[in-house]
């Protein structure tokens, strides 16, 4: 019991204590801040947007940022501020869904296969390795071609490529912990495999999984943007930063820089936020031997 609490304590950092944990703590905090504010902004968008983000011709077309339209309007006269506020919803959905799928599939398989060992372990490792290094965008394109577009399909494509990462991390942790003394002790005391898995191994696995998950989030966002760019995104009547990026790219040579810049910055900030969380957490959990 003692050991368990201390492990959990090291995992669930008190937010306030983060600031005391040095640079890594600050990085995690900044990342958390970015992500939370963007998610909050997307949630609150229906109430705080000055205009309907899908409404056409609320203002003159190609209007540069000014008093009435702080972020300007695009080629259809849609208000960019409203679009920026609500445009993250699709990407966040894709990211959350893909992480969810990975957690539901990758973690249990990793736990079971590596704990059981033997042939099951070898087989799963083989399968995971064959998918592991595959570029996500390529697979996403192939899947989108087959299944069509949409939030679920995009999430599926990204999840398929990421499951092996979760599997590997979980497996390496499990292999280490399996041999630790207290697990032996628990087994000697008669605890069943499932209890050992859930009580001793799982809590230790969680921190590393969170790190992988945050990188997964960041990648999912960039891949979703890439898919929309090649034309495999959602239908255009839903406000989406990916669409704004694609349209904005076509308008940039004509000088309408505001259409691509603001959504682009938001995507960068969101991806950055998740990356920073991952970086910070991984340093907090496995501090490097820097002096």
């Amino acid at each position, binding site marked *: 019991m003692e050991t368990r609490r201390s492990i959990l304590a090291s995992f669930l950092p008190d937010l306030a204590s983060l600031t005391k944990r040095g640079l890594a703590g600050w990085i995690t905090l900044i990342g958390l801040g970015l992500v939370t504010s963007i998610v909050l902004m997307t949630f609150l968008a229906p109430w705080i947007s000055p205009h309907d983000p*899908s*409404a*056409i*011709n609320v203002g003159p*077309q*190609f209007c540069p940022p000014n008093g009435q339209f702080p972020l300007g309007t695009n*080629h*259809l*006269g849609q208000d960019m501020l409203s679009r920026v506020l609500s445009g993250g919803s699709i990407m966040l959905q894709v990211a959350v869904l893909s992480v969810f799928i990975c957690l539901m599939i990758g973690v249990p398989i990793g736990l079971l296969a590596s704990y059981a060992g033997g042939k099951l372990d070898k087989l799963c*490792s083989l399968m995971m*390795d064959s998918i592991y290094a595959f570029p996500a965008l390529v697979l996403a394109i192939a899947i989108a071609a087959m299944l*069509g*577009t949409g939030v679920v399909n995009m999430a599926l494509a990204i999840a398929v490529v990421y499951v092996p990462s979760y599997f*590997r*991390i979980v*497996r*390496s942790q499990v*292999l*280490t912990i399996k041999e630790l003394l207290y697990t032996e002790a628990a087994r000697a005391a008669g605890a069943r495999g499932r209890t050992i898995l859930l009580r001793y191994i799982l809590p230790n696995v969680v921190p590393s999984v969170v790190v992988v998950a945050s990188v997964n989030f960041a990648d999912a966002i960039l891949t979703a943007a890439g898919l929309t760019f090649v*034309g495999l995104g959602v*239908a*255009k*009547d839903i406000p989406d930063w990916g669409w704004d990026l694609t349209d904005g*790219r*076509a*308008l940039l*040579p*004509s*000088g309408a820089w505001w259409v691509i810049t603001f959504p682009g910055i938001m995507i960068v900030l969101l991806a950055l936020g998740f990356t920073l969380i991952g970086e910070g957490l991984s340093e907090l959990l496995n501090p490097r031997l820097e002096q």
Partner: protein
Amino acid sequence: MGGEGNFMKIFRSRKAVTTTEGVIIVALILAIILSASTLFYVSTVTSQLAGLSTSISKLSDSLSKLSSDLATVSKTVEEVRKIVGAPPPTPTPTPPPPPKLKDTLIVGTTDSVELTLDPAQAYDWFGWHILQQIGGRLVEIRPGSKAGPEDYVPDLATDWSASADLKTWTFNLRKGVKFEDGREFTAEDVKYSIDRAIALIPSIPEGAPAGLGYDAVIDSVEVSGTYQVKFHLKIPFAPFLGFMYCRSSAIVEKKYAPIMQINYTEGDARASTPVGFLGPYKLTRWVRIAGKDNEMRLEANPNYWNVTGGYPKTKRIIYKFYADATALRLAIEAGDVDIAFRHITAADVLDLTKNPNLKVWWGTGAFIQYMIFQEKIKPFDDPRVRRALAAALNRPAVCKTVFLGTMEPLYSIIPKGMMGHTEAFKELGDANYALTRSLLAELGYNENNKLPVELWYESSGHYPMSADQALMYKDSFEKSGVITVTVKGIDWAGYRKNRNEEIMPVYVYGWYPDYVDPDDYAFLYWAAWLHHNYVNPEIVALYDKARAITDPTERARLYAEIDKIAVRDSPVIPIFQGVAWGVTKPDVEGLVLDITTDMRYWLVYAEIPA
């Protein structure tokens, strides 16, 4: 397999790599990469000895040729000496030399040949475009004209006539036109080409001859003289000249055109098309990489019958293919190409008109877009619902917002500039919400019970700005207050599939002219391949009547009747008509953008400044 743990160990490893090992490793990697890619490209070595002996014989041939050349040269030198010795003749004033023209122009485009350059198959704009530059047909259309019956001019045929019943058409062919190998063009070649096109219809059901209905119109082709050919038709067909103008009627060269589809052959442009090089250009290079065009080259054809007219004005045209409209805009702006044509977006072309270093060309268009209702899905089987939606459309808004004024609202399926065009759909109006509401009220739809509409658009760029168009239609439908719209997009292949399976309640399609005649447009109201299940024998009867007579007034009257019925039934709603544009460097001249939507590069040139 090494897991995370080992990875960490490596990071902390203290084992250094010696320089030699490093060099070997790097060299090994480079060698692997090089050999892997080279393996794919090394061609087989033919017998070395045979090669060597042929080289030796070639060498001896060259040596003997060299010695005879030397003899000729010494003779010429003697003659020159004699002339030079004579007193100089009095100089006569020479006329100023004609302006020198650039001999190569580079065209940038986002198009690509869809499948083949076989006239029996090709049905895409770009395939037809290339076939027009290299192939010959019996007739051409005067550039810049309205493409009316009086605008057909001789190409490989010098004159023609039709029988009174419009079922027999006689063409007299131009004499002395030669194929590449020197063989003369005769009526046999015309017969072979058309017979081949018709023979291939069963195996190429999606080709141009099938789509145009060659087998439904042409009964037989008769060679009535070495330079005369007679077409016997199954029905009286007034627009037959249009058929002969289509690229599917291009003359093929028999030895390259067996009765089967001719596909692209890597590295051999001549073998990649069955068409005889009877046009202003020859196709000298066609490179496709990974199924898409990468480069095409046209070189002036010395056998072209109009070479004496100075055509083609530019000896070589090189096509370069860009990924999308934005990339093409950047290319023309950076000066990487001389001409940018298809496609530049409306926003870009309007922006480029402000650029003093570029020239923007505008022209008439004949490209149209129209909205289709699936009558198998309720309530779109009720003409009142269809008329209500037609009334709710706001064409001027679409043209202004999405296309920035470069497209024009269209109120008849026959575009402006063509005989038979009317403003029939103005009767239903634009954003005529009063009419929409009253029609839908008859069926019980109102603010509290809105009509749900599922609107589909094509998402892979086959039509310009299709996603934005869909948003506009949604906007205008919903502004009526009694309609709610869901927008759905799918790529071209899926779009066609859905069309064939008849599952899209409302969808948008486009059309380019095959030949410039209302006959090629009017049938769109009930075209079977649109799969919208509109059947009306009355309207078809009018159509069949109109194609069987030549009197333009009477024909126009019949097409106006067709339009009236279309407004009443609203099976298909014309939305807008496209204008064509191109962007070039300022020294380029001669672009003609007329109602044929053709681009005739043999008229285009750039002067070299003196």
